[in-house]
């Protein structure tokens, strides 16, 4: 993790730098006695963490946070115990250290930063996985073809094969409706008939026992009609 230290007090910077040196996985890229110089530095350098003094002449730590376009994690350092409430109004403020900062308190704070970073990484990974699940790989002519799931509007069973109809192309795949049904998001797809799965967002209209999906008329079984109607946003 890469950090910078911003504090007009040289003693405070030295203590923080020492704590950082004694912490594995934490590298001090630079230190600044002036908030303005730190802002200039951040315009062309990426950091993960800023140790920021709240009380600085002419430009407070809070003013500094407001100028940041990116939002690295911030640990505020201060000699005032009474600014904590205001400090935590900034979403990227992780902790609030009262000077003089002891080794023990610094370590707890860094653990908090690391723990939060891990949670964020995990959330990002899940989001990426969710994005990947928008795609389905199907076997066509001995090749695995990537199909964008929301582009599928209809799937029809034909013997041992299914015909997957998408915006640009149809795919004949050796599989069953049951297998593909399990791979599709429930909120978007529905099996209206033993031989048809439709993308419900592509429905044009519904008649007694059929539904028009794009330009295709698809039969709806009696048993599934009620469930289909429940899924739709009816007036």
């Amino acid at each position: 993790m890469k950090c910078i230290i911003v504090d007009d007090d040289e003693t405070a910077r030295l203590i923080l730098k020492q704590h950082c040196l004694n912490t594995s996985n934490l590298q001090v890229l630079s230190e600044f006695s002036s908030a303005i110089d730190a802002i200039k530095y951040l315009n062309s350098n990426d950091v993960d963490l800023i140790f920021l003094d709240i009380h600085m002449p002419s430009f407070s730590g809070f003013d500094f946070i407001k100028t940041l376009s990116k939002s690295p994690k911030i640990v505020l350092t201060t000699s005032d115990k009474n600014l904590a409430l205001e400090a935590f109004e900034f979403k990227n403020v992780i902790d609030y250290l009262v000077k003089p900062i002891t080794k023990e308190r610094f370590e707890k704070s860094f653990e908090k930063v690391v723990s939060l970073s891990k949670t964020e990484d995990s959330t990002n990974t899940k989001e990426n996985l969710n994005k990947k699940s928008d795609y389905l790989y199907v076997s066509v002519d001995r090749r695995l073809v990537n199909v964008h799931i929301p582009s599928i509007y209809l799937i029809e069973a034909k013997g041992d094969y299914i015909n997957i109809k998408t915006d640009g192309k149809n795919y004949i795949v050796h599989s069953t409706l049951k297998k593909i049904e399990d791979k599709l998001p429930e909120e978007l797809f529905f099996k209206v008939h033993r031989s048809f799965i439709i993308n419900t967002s592509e429905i044009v209209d519904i008649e007694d026992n059929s539904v028009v999906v794009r330009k295709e008329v698809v039969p709806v079984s009696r048993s599934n009609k009620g469930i289909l109607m429940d899924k739709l946003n009816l007036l």
Partner: protein
Amino acid sequence: MEKPNMQVIEEISGNDEDFKKNLLEIIKKEFSKEFENYNHSYLKKDFEEASECVHKLKHKISLLGFKEELQKAALFEKEVKKGNLELHENFIDTLNKINVYLYD
């Protein structure tokens, strides 16, 4: 009456004697400058600036182990801004103790 001590500095330094020496050098350098700045602001009756100086000196006061005096200094930081100098003598006493401790 509280006396300055090395407890906080020892705790921060651990067993790193070089760091401790370096830290004390910087505290000495900054303290004398900050003390001088406070006196200057006080004499010219710039109480806003004096309050800023008290704020900076609070860190040194806490590093040298003062607890009660730190609370008084925090109160003085607010009061001096309003022109209330009731705690000035007490504050100067604390700074003098630090001065003697650091330089004798």
